């Protein structure tokens, strides 16, 4: 796959756009295994592209693979397999999307498919102003659907000061019909518990170490679930019943670690 356009979102986050029918058809929340020759392979949520026929990934540079992908310029080649996993189920009515960091990426794709929602709230969390992205895009993707976009930064340099969870209660009071979340696991854990305790259906896209992406290697296990095939999107009730969610994950060796 050839990268056709690169967008700098923040100093550490880029969106890479490319033409591919298969990825363009991915459902929101599905992911792909993205190979950066020489650098590695990693799971990436399929991101929305504004251009028809295009798909995208939004990547933050962290380790070798993500940095390799981040550094892939226009014209660069990547290998993509998938899409894999379960997607968000888009429900009707009023929707609340809560995302942190690159976890916004599947939510953006979901937003681009929420045309029949009655109202959409998007809650975006970041550490600081420079790391805020997708605010403008969220507005464009929401299009005609009545929407509100709220940004929080931990240092208060942009939007409201604090964490997304601080804003959450108020927005849940407005009784959304469905909550969708993706981001750091402690954040998702809080969102899932808060929504579920009020009886509001919630879905979260979970992250684990992935090697195969297709349910062979077991590296992505979370309790008895395999995040790659049973998820990455899970229903909130299911997650609450899974004692490993929000608590432990397995590193690359399979050693159990705290989230």
């Amino acid at each position, binding site marked *: 796959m050839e990268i056709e356009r690169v967008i700098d979102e923040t100093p550490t986050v880029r969106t890479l756009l490319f033409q591919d029918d298969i990825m363009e058809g991915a459902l929101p929340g599905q992911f792909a*295994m993205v*190979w950066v*020759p*020489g650098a*590695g*392979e*990693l799971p990436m949520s399929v991101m929305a592209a504004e251009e028809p026929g295009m798909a995208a990934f939004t990547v933050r540079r962290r380790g*070798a*693979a993500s940095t390799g992908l981040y550094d892939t310029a226009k014209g660069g*080649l990547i*290998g993509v*397999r998938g899409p894999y996993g379960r997607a968000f189920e888009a429900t009707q009515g009023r929707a609340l999307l809560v995302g942190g960091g690159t976890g916004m990426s599947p939510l953006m794709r979901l937003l681009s498919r929420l045309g029949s929602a009655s109202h959409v709230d998007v809650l975006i969390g970041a550490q600081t102003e420079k790391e805020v992205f997708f605010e403008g895009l969220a507005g464009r993707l929401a299009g005609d659907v009545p929407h509100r976009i709220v940004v929080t930064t931990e240092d208060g340099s942009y939007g409201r000061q604090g964490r997304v969870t601080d804003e959450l209660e108020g927005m849940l009071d407005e009784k959304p019909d469905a909550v969708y979340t993706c981001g750091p696991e402690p954040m998702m854990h809080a969102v899932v518990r808060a929504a579920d305790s009020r009886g509001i259906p919630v879905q979260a896209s979970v992250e684990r170490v992935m*090697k*195969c*992406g*297709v*349910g*062979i*290697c*077991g*590296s992505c*296990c979370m*309790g*008895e679930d*395999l995040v790659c*095939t049973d998820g990455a999107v899970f229903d909130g009730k299911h997650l609450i019943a899974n004692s*490993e969610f929000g608590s432990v994950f*397995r*590193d*690359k*060796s*399979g*050693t*159990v670690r705290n989230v």
Partner: protein
Amino acid sequence: MLASGILGISVDVFRRVLGAGAGAVVTKSLSREPWEGYSNPTITGTGGGGWLNAVGLSNPGASAFAGMLKGQGLPAVVSLVGSAPAEFVSMIKEFRDGAAAFEINLSCPHVAKVGLEVGDDPGLVGEIVSAAKRAADVPVFAKVGLGSTHYIKTAGAAAEAGADAITAINTVRAMSIDVEAKKPVLSNGFGGLSGPPIRPIAVRCVWELASKYDVPVIGCGGVSSWEDAIEMMLAGACAVQVGSAAGGRIGIFGEINAGILGYMERNGFGSVKEMVGLART
């Protein structure tokens, strides 16, 4: 039986696999220390249901795993890798109360100093299996594959040293190159081929082993349906492991069980034993 390295690092997942109908599970091959394994890509499809993997024996280490299995009473075969008899002995000792059997991995085709590189040295194989037998109070299996020493010799050394069963076969050393990237797909270059493509090779190995030695053979390689499982048994396998085919399809164990039962009924077999090696008679 679930093959080693497939879904094999968590007790919760083992329970799910057993619930789906597997008679036993084999753990990911464990080493004395935790191993990270190779970096991604570690697995790639090769067409026709085949997979090429070089996970690099990533595992949390024997101690951590022994802690997980302890007292759970699961029918778990603990797979072990190492380079010297003492390593195996020390790992086996960690598993008092937790292992239903041990499987010595003599055949991983893509990690240096362990697996196939051990299997290729029949003398060492004999020492390891003898030592493991002395240390273990449960059965010890030896898992062989296609290496630079003929697997028949490796299996022979293991059998002579007292192995309770031979598992055949592991993945077959192989490679895929991406023509656009002009590089091997796997980060390690070489990997092991598994899935339906290797089934006819595995069936042949099971047949050859069962014909040559008196020790029970556990068939592994490309089994993805009840017919494949029966094929292994007819060749001489008294038990069958399912690896790649369980990927994304844990229900396969129940399907295979049901298929075998139906086949036995239609053909008037009273027990699995009657089928083992039948095609060789």
